[in-house]
């Protein structure tokens, strides 16, 4: 075992399934998602809108809206600490006895291994999240310094004025004069607001930062500034990071590893060079083909045809089959096998079934 | 999110099924359905009252021998101080309450709707004048305004309708105006204008269909409020006059006998409450059905 593997991963999600059970239909947001972030590393989670990226981030913090959200299976552990684990056979038996066989609306399929108090302790202090839209993720009626200091006073014993002072420090760290802390969110521009959100998320130097499309809502020029700042702060604090994005450029810029997510499951995972230079999955290839090529501007963009699959359908075969140029009959019928090109680089696709792992799904 | 394609009015791609969808959502709402059925039952009773009861006998003639009898098999709701059957009086009362309520709100909606549409669509000075007028009407608590109008015009059914209609006008004018404003500059209306749509066509084809939701909901709720106001006006002696058996008037009459014949005041009140409750349930249901996002 190498030194790296002895320290538990900052985040390890195994086989996570999340459903949103409405009155008339169920949306399968995640169907067996696997993710692993080593300590100090940044993992990019790439996929289209609706692929389940945000749900993945929220389920780590235990903030999936419930109802209608239900975690039906899998496990999550943060820095070696189990948060959610699948039910053992005995426990599942108990649940069946209590609620019967029918799919109960609140049937968890998993157990929470930590109390709500422990979860609260974890949120903001050990795991923070930056949300997609800075325009709406700050409370409009509270000053920004108060909103930052709130997380400090919640988790530490410092006095109110000390918390405010440290909030001011954080503001300066993200490049906002501390005097502006007395102002309200509506007095800031979008980029400034996102800086405030970042200051809030990093106020207690959490070990894990989940950034959900932190720059999507910003202007391109501001995007670069914010990204650079996040990179700097991450490196200073040795923060592990889950970077949720649909932008491969950001992945190339900031991530160590990439997981490509499609219809609630990871279809390809590897280091930057694995995924960028030895692309395996047709969907990942499609993502690259739909990027403009700056060196050869003559080539036409090749978008992926079709739309995201209907999330209220449970696929038996490969969910990408309908949009895939290389799909064959088997793709629509059977679940695709896992193939490991190297120890780190894997994909889930029928194209590689001849070389696929004998033992089926291997943890990534 | 709600409207991915700004070129289309919300729900336009499913134009035909829009009414059907709303109805389906409404039908799923048990409370709203209960309200609707109670209202339909009331309307049925009000329309067919003459088949079951004799107006002259139950509302005009006196029968002192059987006065102030508590509810029994013979007189379901008891008899009043003149020995008239309360059940028949309550049924005839529904006729008055419902017809004045519907008439006043329809009248108010008509006037207010035109004012609001004109105000919202044309804007400028017309808008300003109409809205300031509404401000003046809304500055006086509604009940007081109705009282003053009835007091000045005299207590006839027509004046009651006018007074109650006037108190609805500014509310409808404001709702229609803001609904018109919210869609007037919407992209799909601009698109319709850009391809050369005529004003009238735009108003009827694009603007009105998208205002209809809040108007329907508010109409239902206004009818409820108006029925309550009719009863209130009758109660203080400014509404429907004896011997007409309006619910508020019945209640007012029963008030004098509350110590020993409390059913006289209780029963009409329950009728008013159930009617208003039904309208409110239906109104809430309609609001949820028309805008499922809210629930």
């Amino acid at each position, binding site marked *: 075992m190498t030194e790296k593997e002895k320290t538990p991963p900052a985040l390890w999600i195994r086989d996570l399934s999340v459903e949103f059970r409405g009155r008339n239909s169920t949306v399968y947001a995640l169907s067996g998602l696997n993710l692993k972030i080593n300590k100090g590393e940044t993992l990019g989670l790439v996929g289209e809108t609706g692929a389940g990226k945000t749900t993945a981030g929220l389920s780590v913090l235990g903030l999936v809206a419930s109802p209608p959200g239900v975690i039906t299976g899998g496990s999550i552990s943060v820095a070696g600490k189990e948060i959610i684990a699948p039910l053992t056979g005995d426990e599942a038996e108990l649940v069946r006895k209590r609620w019967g066989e029918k799919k109960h609306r609140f049937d968890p399929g998993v157990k929470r291994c930590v109390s709500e108090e422990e979860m609260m302790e974890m949120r903001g202090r050990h795991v923070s999240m930056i949300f997609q839209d800075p325009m709406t993720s700050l409370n*409009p009626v509270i000053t920004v310094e108060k909103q930052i200091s709130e997380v400090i006073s919640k988790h530490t014993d410092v006095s109110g004025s000390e918390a405010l002072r440290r909030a001011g420090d954080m503001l300066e760290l993200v490049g906002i004069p501390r005097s502006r802390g007395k102002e309200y969110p509506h007095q800031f521009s979008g980029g400034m607001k996102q800086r405030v959100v970042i200051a809030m998320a990093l106020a207690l130097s959490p070990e894990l930062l989940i950034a959900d499309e932190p720059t999507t809502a910003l202007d391109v020029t501001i995007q670069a500034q914010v990204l650079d700042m996040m990179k700097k702060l991450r490196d200073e604090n040795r923060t592990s990071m889950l970077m949720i994005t649909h932008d491969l450029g950001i992945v190339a810029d900031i991530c160590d590893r990439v997981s490509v997510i499609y219809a609630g499951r990871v279809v390809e995972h590897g280091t930057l060079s694995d995924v960028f230079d030895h692309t395996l999955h047709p969907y990942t290839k499609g993502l690259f083909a739909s990027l403009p090529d700056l060196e050869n501007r003559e080539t036409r963009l090749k978008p992926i045809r079709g739309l995201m699959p209907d999330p209220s359908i449970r696929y038996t075969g490969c969910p990408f089959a309908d949009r895939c140029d290389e799909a064959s009959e088997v793709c629509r019928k059977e679940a695709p096998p896992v193939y490991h090109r190297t120890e780190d680089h894997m994909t889930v696709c029928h194209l590689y079934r001849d070389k696929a792992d004998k033992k089926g799904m291997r943890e990534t | 999110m709600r409207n991915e394609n700004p070129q289309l009015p919300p729900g336009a791609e499913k134009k035909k099924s829009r009414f059907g969808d709303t109805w389906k959502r409404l039908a799923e709402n048990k409370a709203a359905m209960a309200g609707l059925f109670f209202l339909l039952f009331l309307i049925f009773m009000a329309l067919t009252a003459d088949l079951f009861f004799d107006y002259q006998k139950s509302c005009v003639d006196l029968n002192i021998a059987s006065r102030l009898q508590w509810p029994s098999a013979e007189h379901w709701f008891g008899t009043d101080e003149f020995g008239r059957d309360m059940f028949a009086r309550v049924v005839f009362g529904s006729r008055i309450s419902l017809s004045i309520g519907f008439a006043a709100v329809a009248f108010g909606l008509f006037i207010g709707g035109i004012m609001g549409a004109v105000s919202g669509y044309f804007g400028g000075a017309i808008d300003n004048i109409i809205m300031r007028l509404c401000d003046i009407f809304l500055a006086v*608590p509604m009940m*007081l305004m109705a009282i003053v109008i009835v007091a000045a015009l005299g207590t006839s059914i027509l004046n009651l309708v006018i007074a109650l209609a006037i108190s609805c006008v500014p509310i409808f004018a404001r709702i229609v105006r803001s609904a018109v404003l919210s869609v007037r500059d919407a992209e799909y209306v601009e698109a319709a204008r850009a391809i050369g749509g005529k004003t009238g066509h735009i108003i009827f084809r694009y603007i009105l269909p998208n205002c209809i939701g809040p108007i329907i909901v508010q109409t239902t709720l206004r009818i409820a409020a108006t029925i309550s106001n009719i009863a209130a006006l009758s109660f203080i002696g400014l509404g429907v006059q004896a011997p007409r058996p309006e619910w*508020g008037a019945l*209640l007012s009459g029963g008030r004098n006998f*509350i110590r020993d014949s409390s059913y006289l005041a209780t029963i009409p009140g329950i009728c008013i409450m159930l009617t208003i409750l039904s309208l409110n349930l239906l109104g809430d249901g309609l609001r949820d059905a028309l805008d499922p996002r809210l629930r």
Partner: protein
Amino acid sequence: MAKYIIKRILYLIPVLIGVTLLVFFIMHLAPGNVAQIILGDNATPDQIAQLEKEMGLDQPVIVQYFRYLTGLLHGNLGNSYTTGASVTSEIMARFPYTIRLTVVAAVFSVILALPLGILAAVRQNTWVDSVSMIFSLIGVSMPIFWLALMLILIFALKLGWFPVYGADSFKSIILPAVSLGFMNMASIARTTRSAMVETIRQDYIRTAYSKGLSEREVIMRHAFRNGMLPTITVIGLEIGQMLGGSVLTETVFAWPGVGRLMIQAINGRDTPTVMGCIILMTVCFALVNLAVDLLYGVFDPRVRTMYR
């Protein structure tokens, strides 16, 4: 903000003038000769003409109106047609009773409505939600005067806990205030619930949870202030409703307030008193709405910067 307040107060003036104009002309539509009413059926035409001249009733309506308006600016609301007393002093003698009743009713309704609405929103789609919303729905559907009668029947006549009418003890305000405030309580609770439901869905609530705050802290610190914005508007409107509703409550409970005075004045064709009551109620309503706007500034910094 000060500039904004002044602007708002200045805007009140044309509205109030409009109201006086409106009510004056509506009252003028009333059939019957005022002098005749005052003097009674036995008056000779000469006496009537004499009195009309004294009162200025022989002049065009518009002139009468301007004379009334001039008086109003000096705080003079004219003299009652029925008692001859100064309307201002008559109204002022009754006004404290109406204020007391409305304030108690408003406090009662707000204190009950806010927790009810917040609880229903936080426990959305549970039995807590259903029960409190059914309760509120019945509340908004209950006519004030009927509720008043039922309260009298149960708590005054049957149980004897409270007096049937009058305004002489502390106990005597309970039933009128409850009957006046109940409907508004229900209505405020419903608004609070829907405002809070809307607020709880906002992204910043999720942000607040992601900071590790407890549900209680999120609701009280983050959701409450935002959810209050639509609610205080409705509270203002509901207080206006209560001013109107006080006419009914005061009549049922024989409460010696302005509302009851107004009904007596209407029955006696006493135009100056009716006018006075309406103007007073309208001013109160306008002041309540002004207070609501100021509260908006307190609750919402965006409003504050807008009018800085």
